[in-house]
């Protein structure tokens, strides 16, 4: 099974149409596409507009290839399960997202060897033609880097703010909370 996904935010018809055309020519592989609010409706793939987070994870887990936009939710989940990933970034100029940040993300992912990247439809067709050779990723950990976890953990537990030492009475918030509670009740 190949899972094609554009994430939960915006449609990405350019990706869905290109993969659907390829699926129509190729016939063999089974594909499922999550297309969000796209105008283009696939003819050669099973599809749904949105799926639950649980089904989303299950589909990634069960797929032998993930074809996706360069959204980090999809990328991180696919990498957690060690699934091969082929991404095409959204372009700001086509109104597919606000700006070209996915282009930069995709370039970095390719550079670091996390994903195969197609910058446009032609490259996507090219990558799909040889999708058997799309490098299998090795699974990443299910958590952030140890360095980042330590930074967050230390900051939460640490004495970064002097007020932390004296604890109870230094918490200025209860008064505000009361005000809010009254405002809401009124």
């Amino acid at each position, binding site marked *: 099974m190949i899972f094609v996904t554009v*994430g*939960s*935010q915006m449609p990405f018809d350019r990706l869905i149409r290109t993969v659907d055309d390829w699926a129509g020519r190729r016939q063999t592989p089974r594909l499922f596409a999550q297309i969000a609010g796209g105008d283009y409706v696939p003819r050669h793939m099973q599809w749904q507009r949105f799926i*639950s*987070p*649980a089904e989303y994870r299950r589909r990634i887990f069960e797929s032998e290839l993930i074809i996706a936009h*360069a*959204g*980090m*939710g*999809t*990328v*991180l*989940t696919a*990498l957690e399960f060690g699934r091969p990933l082929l991404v095409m970034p959204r372009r700001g100029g086509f109104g597919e997202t606000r700006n070209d*940040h*996915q282009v*930069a*993300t995709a*370039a*970095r992912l390719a550079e*670091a060897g*996390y994903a195969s990247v197609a910058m446009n439809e032609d490259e996507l067709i090219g990558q799909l033609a040889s999708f058997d050779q799309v490098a299998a990723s090795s699974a*990443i950990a*299910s*958590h*952030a*880097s*140890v*360095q*980042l*976890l*330590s*930074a*967050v*953990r230390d*900051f*939460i*537990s640490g004495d*970064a*703010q002097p*007020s*932390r030492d004296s*604890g*109870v009475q*230094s*918490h*200025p*918030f*209860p008064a*505000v*909370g*009361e005000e*809010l*509670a009254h405002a*809401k009740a009124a």
Partner: protein
Amino acid sequence: MATIASSNQRTRTARTGRLRVLAIASGGGHWVQLLRLRPALAEHDVTYVSVDKCYRSDISPAKFRVVNDATRRNKIGLVLLAIRVAWILARVRPDTIVTTGAAPGYFAVRLGKLFGMKTIWIDSIANVERLSLSGRQVEPYADLWLTQWSHLAGVGGPRYAGAML
């Protein structure tokens, strides 16, 4: 009565050494990145907040609250979101707020700072070439202000302390 209850709660919290943490993010990649911080939060009393009730299953049995999502184009949505976030902060009274963006995290950090809570902003790993707009705007209110890209860190900018990958 609320005051008594909350002061009891703080005492108990102090005794067990657990702190109250509010972990908040919008949907999609922001939420997936927040989930990857769970090991750093595990020893604390964490309340998760996001924009889709389905996400509850990702963190169950931890506490979970839902807010609306909003973008800059939806001013009414932003106001509503700010009110909901303020309400949640008032109820949960976290010691520390940690967020991976976007709009819900922005309001949580801004309001949390106002209320004297410690605040952590971790800009999304998707922002490779420059910090997100909310990430830039939140700077004065974030006690720990992080980018996940070392080349974006530096003097006058956010700190780099590792990434989600």
